[in-house]
Structures are given as C-alpha cells and as structure tokens.
C-alpha cells in the first residue's frame, strides 16, 4: 500500500491559503444563513455579510485594556489562523499535498493542541475576568476532548498501518473508514467542534460571560481571531475527508473536486449540528469525555486492530 | 553541521535549565528548570541517534526520556497542589521544613 499523493512545491501554499479563505467565507455565510432563518429574515441577504463584517472590523479601532499583556494577546489572536494553515499543509487536496509527511496524522494532532495555547492566551492577554474565565473553561473542555480525539485519530492509522495521510487514503480504496469505524468518526467530530470552540464547545466564548475569551477583542484582532476560528473548523472538516471519507476518491469528477465537495459537506454538517446543540459546560463534559468517550475510543481502536490482524 | 555543535546547543539548554532549577524558589519554576534540562537531553539523544547509530534503540531512548518528563511533570503538579493545600505556600524553602 503506497502513498496516493504527490508532494507539490511550497509555492502552492498560497493556493492552499486561498482555499482556506474560501472555506472560511463559505462557513461564515452558511452560519449567517442559519442565524437569519431563526429571526425570520431572508437567508439570501447574508451572502455579502462576511464582507460587511470584515469592513466593520477593519474600520473599528483596536482597543486595549488596563495592563493588558499585549504581546501574548496578539499571539493568541493571530495563532488560530496560523494553526489552521499549518493543519492544511498535510491535508491532500485530491492528489496533491504540500507536505507528504511520515507522521502527518500526529502533525495534525500537534497543531490542534496549539489551539489550547492560543485560546488561553487570548483569554489571558486581555486582563479581564470574563475573558480569563473563558480561557479556563476552554482548557477544562480541552482536557476532556483531546484524549478521546487522539484515540479516534489512531483508528484510521491502525487500519492503514501508517501515520501518513496519503497511505491512509490509499487504504480506503475498498471501503471508506467512516463505514466500519463510525465511533471514531463521531469522536473525531466532537474533537473538531471542540478545538474550533464551536457549537456545544463554545462556552469559552459563551454569552453568560459576555463573549468569554474574545470579550475584549476589537477591530483587526477580532477579525483575525474569529476568522482563525472558522479556519480551524474548516481545516478539521477537511481532515475528516482523507481520514474517513476516502480522500479524493469518487466516480467521474477529478479527485480535487471530490475532496472539495466532501469537505464542504462535512463543514456544513458540523456548523448545522453545532447550532442545534446547547452548550456543554466543562464540569459536565469532562465526565462525559473521561468516562464515556475515552473507553469508546479505546474499544473502537481494539475492534479496528482485531479486524486488521485477522484479515 | 557536526555532532559537536548540536551537543553544544544541548549543553547550553541543560545549563540554563540547571540555573533555573537551583535558583528558583517556587516549585513550579523549579519544575520548569528541570524540564529545560531534559529538553537539552532530548536534543542530545536525537543528535546521537542521527550522527552515530541510526537504529531504533536511540529512538526508544528518546521516547523513554519524554515519558520520564511527563511523569515528572504530573507528579510535580500533584505535589505542588498537595504542598499548597497543606501549607498554603509553594516555596521549596518551606517544603524542606515539612520533613521535620
């Protein structure tokens, strides 16, 4: 089983960044449409909303707070977008990848751990109680979703007998992994929602603490942070495709189109599900993560390992 | 790039960590010094593997060092919490008084 992908020159990173930008725009529009529908407004009006929002935040001045740790604050704010871009480097776009890396799966995992640092730094840097509480909440949730996520990531790697993303795609030529390791996919989705602070895991940015970790962000800082949050969500959705949905495989259309179509489908599903669920409070979800999700992930890995060894 | 130069970086990291580990008063800061020393050891182990014996044994050694670091850290946090709970303080100087 060889790798199914070709490494392209680093110059294509610009194309990857543009694709991420497109996905972020799409995600923001789709989320805006769902939001407009609940207040009974036409969803069509939201098509340009991200443009307006960007203009608004570009026009808005950056604001500081008393004794803010501006350096750490800015690093945290910009870091989400950087983490999203770094994740994208190991995700094959159809047949092409920027970085055909031995341990691509672990690379992705390491990049989503960066989000831990970023959210906490954003919460800390503003020197505001609500924001800091948001940072604490995220770390508590992170401890609960990250370990199950790791077990979920291992399942496709066991089945493909490799940590290389291209090889994992190649191993799915017969059957997509989502079919016979559904729990791994579910836990992976929980993890993606978790590290993008989305939907049920948004309590770090919750309404009860006036926007939480992001409460003190304004202007460009806010724009970059929230774009980065969509970016991490989009990168997570894009990574589900090579891991569970056979990468770019599909009839008729070229591989890159299949990859994009599947990514958009997973992304919209995540956004939709995220809006339907209430917030998970850390004190509740920690127990779920440790008592239910970790054993579920281990059992899933065990089943996958048994299937692979008995083939 | 030679083995000696990489080892010098590792030695520098180790020495800085040593300075922190013996000069700091707060338990958590001492732990950070120890971590930095182990950081140097990781780099040295990686360099030995690459320059001298590219066989899996060296990598296993590295993995063991990383595992040792996590154990050190977890126990350090637990002990810091315990000392803090008992004494309301986290200074190493105070912890030495505990043994009496």
């Amino acid at each position, binding site marked *: 089983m060889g790798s199914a992908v070709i490494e392209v020159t680093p110059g294509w990173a610009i194309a990857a960044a543009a694709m991420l930008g497109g996905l972020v725009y799409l995600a923001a529009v789709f989320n805006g449409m769902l939001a407009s529908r609940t207040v009974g407004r036409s969803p069509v009006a939201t098509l340009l909303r991200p443009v307006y929002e960007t203009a608004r935040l570009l026009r808005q001045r950056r604001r500081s707070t008393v*004794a803010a*740790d501006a350096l*750490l604050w800015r*690093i945290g704010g910009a870091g989400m977008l950087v983490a999203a871009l770094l994740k994208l480097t190991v995700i094959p776009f159809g047949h092409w990848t920027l970085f055909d890396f*031995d341990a691509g799966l*672990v*690379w992705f995992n*390491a990049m989503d*751990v*960066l989000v*831990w640092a970023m959210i*906490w730094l954003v919460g800390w840097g503003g020197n505001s109680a609500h924001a800091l509480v948001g940072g*604490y909440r995220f*770390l508590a949730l992170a401890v609960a979703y990250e370990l199950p996520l790791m077990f979920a990531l291992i399942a496709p790697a066991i089945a493909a007998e490799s940590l290389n993303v291209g090889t994992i795609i190649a191993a799915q030529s017969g059957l997509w992994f989502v079919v016979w390791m559904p729990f791994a996919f579910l836990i992976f989705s929980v993890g993606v929602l978790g590290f993008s602070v989305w939907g049920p895991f948004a309590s770090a940015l919750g309404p009860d603490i006036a926007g939480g970790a992001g409460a003190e962000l304004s202007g460009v800082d806010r724009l970059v942070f929230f774009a980065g949050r969509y970016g991490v969500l989009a990168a997570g959705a894009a990574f589900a495709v090579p891991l569970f949905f056979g990468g770019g495989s599909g009839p008729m259309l070229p591989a890159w189109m299949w990859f994009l179509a599947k990514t958009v489908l997973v992304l919209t599903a995540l956004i939709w599900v995220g809006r339907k669920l209430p917030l998970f409070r850390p*004190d*509740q979800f*920690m*127990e779920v993560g440790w008592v239910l999700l970790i054993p579920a992930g281990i059992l899933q890995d065990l089943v996958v390992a048994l299937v692979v060894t008995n083939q | *790039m030679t083995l000696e130069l*990489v*080892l*010098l970086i590792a*030695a520098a*990291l*180790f*020495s*800085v*960590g*040593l*300075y*922190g580990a013996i000069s*700091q*008063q*707060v*338990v958590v800061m001492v*732990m*950070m*010094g120890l971590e*930095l020393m182990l*950081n140097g050891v*990781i*780099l040295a182990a*990686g360099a030995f593997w*690459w320059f*001298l*014996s*590219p066989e*899996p*044994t060296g990598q*296993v050694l*590295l*993995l063991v060092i990383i*595992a040792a670091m996590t154990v050190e850290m977890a*126990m350090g*946090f*637990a002990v*810091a*919490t315990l000392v803090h709970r008992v004494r309301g303080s*986290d*200074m190493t100087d105070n912890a030495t008084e505990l043994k009496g």
Partner: protein
Amino acid sequence: MTLIGDIVFWLFGAVAVLSGAAVFWVNSMARATYALAISFVAVGLQVLMLDQAYLGIIVILMMVMEMAVMAVYMIMFMGMNPALMPMSMVHDKRLSLSIAIVTFVLLAAGILLTAWPSGSPPPAEDVTVALGEALMGSKMLAMVVLSPVMVATIVAGVSLSLNRGRYDRYGEDLRRRNADDPQPGGVGR
C-alpha cells in the same frame, strides 16, 4: 543536509536557547511558561530535522499541552497577578549562575575533547515504522514498563492532589446512589 537546512537548524537552536533563558528572565509567569513552550517547539523541530519525525512532533504536541496546563498552575499558586507583577523569586542567584556556567564549560570541554566516532549515515527506510517495530518487538520491555508507570502516575497524581475521596462523595458506607458533589457531572458517576 543542505545549507538552508543548516541555517534553519541553527536558527531553531538559537531560539531554543534564548527562549529557554527567557524563562528565568521575563517577569511575567504567563510569558515564562510560554517561553518554555517555544523552547520545546524549537527543539521538537530540530529533532524533526534530524529525521525523527514522530518523536519531534510528539515533543511539540506534549509540551504545548503541558505548558498550557502549567500556565494555569503558575497563576493558581503564585498569589498575585503575574501579568502585572514583576517577579524575582530567586535565592543564591550568583552561586546558581556560576554553577550553571561551570557546568556548561565542563560539558563543552567534554564535547569538544571527546573523539566521537564517525557515525553511519541515517537510514533510508521509514524511521517511524522502525520505531514502532522496535517498540512492539525487540524493545517491547520499554513499553511494558512505561505503560504501568504512566497508569500509576495518573492514579498517584490524582490521589495526591484530591481533597474529596469516594467516602465524601458516596457516604461512609459508599451506599449513596448519587454522588454528593458541589456541582453534578455529566454522567452521574
């Protein structure tokens, strides 16, 4: 390794040492913790460049996680607002500094004076696979020892730092059906 590779490698080395020194230099605990995280990331990338992909990434992954948690501990236990408060909590600064310098000089002398054998070139085959096969084959003992140590660490760490045990939660005879917690968890254990 190419020239650019060499330069990048040294750059990471400089970042690792300088941010390591910054840990004890900066006067904010959050900054100190994340300076250490940067030092680890730089060393992780160096290990990555030394062809040990898996281990390099693992160093980055674990240490960023650890430092994120560490920062919270720093702030919990320091009794003041660390972003604002310059801190100096050292004893025997001069002695420590001289010990550190002497150590470095000794190590450096050892490194430079030792006649290192000229090593074999790095292997061409998949290093990560080799590590995995070693761990599950000839070096299995290491894994067999590490696993229980890790589990023991989790148990010991939790029981050392815990205030309320199961007798507080489920009553003296452990008969209480629902745990008596300040706030209930999500599963009901």
